[in-house]
């Protein structure tokens, strides 16, 4: 996701623009992008690899009990890579027990399939990852952003 698109969605999430305005802005933004699409494949257009995974949580408590809470976490991608390599050192019996425990919890992930080569692929695609969660309850508003930078 491009920075412009992210900004538009951010403005929409903050209520600065309406959904129609956001749609118009995105379509206007895509118009020149479509015409210059071949340039994207050029080596100069290759974006740099993300160095950090950032998680931002912004919680506003309208009830006034706890007050707003902000969380800002920045994790180097190298740490994620090293973590996966560490998972590769887990002995097979322990790995199978961990897999079965995760299956029982409804998480269908086979940890033995996570390898450093796969992680490199994942990290490549993380460049485009942006997760925006906007939750509004009666008393609280929570915004969560997960992205790479």
């Amino acid at each position: 996701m491009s920075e412009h698109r992210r900004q538009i969605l951010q403005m929409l999430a903050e209520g600065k623009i309406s959904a129609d305005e956001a749609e118009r802005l995105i379509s206007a933004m895509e118009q020149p992008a479509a015409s210059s699409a071949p340039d994207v494949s050029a080596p100069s257009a290759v974006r740099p690899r993300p160095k950090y995974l950032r998680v931002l949580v912004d919680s506003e408590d309208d009830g006034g009990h706890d007050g707003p809470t902000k969380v800002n976490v920045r994790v180097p991608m190298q740490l994620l890579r090293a973590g996966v390599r560490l998972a590769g050192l887990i002995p097979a019996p322990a790995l199978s027990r961990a897999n079965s425990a995760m299956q029982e919890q409804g998480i269908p992930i086979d940890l033995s399939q996570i390898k450093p080569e796969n992680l490199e692929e994942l990290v490549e695609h993380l460049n485009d990852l942006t997760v925006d969660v906007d939750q509004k309850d009666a008393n609280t508003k929570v915004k969560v952003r997960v992205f790479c930078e």
Partner: protein
Amino acid sequence: MIPFVAVVSLRNQESRTFRLWIPLFLIWLVLLPLVILLSPFIFLACLICRVNPFRGVGVMWQILTALTDTELELEHRSAGMSFHIF
């Protein structure tokens, strides 16, 4: 590069901030002879757990070096806390 300094910052309800600089390089200097002394036991433990000890040491080193630039910040009305590794 391995992290050299960690900074822990704490803020209380009266907005008083307490900042603590932790010289990690001194901790590494203290730990290094200890790790060398314990290396036979670490090697043995790796063999018992059927883990390649050289690979294990390599991964631990990677984790150590990757800790640089890790950042954690928590802000609340009554208190705040931040943790940076440089």
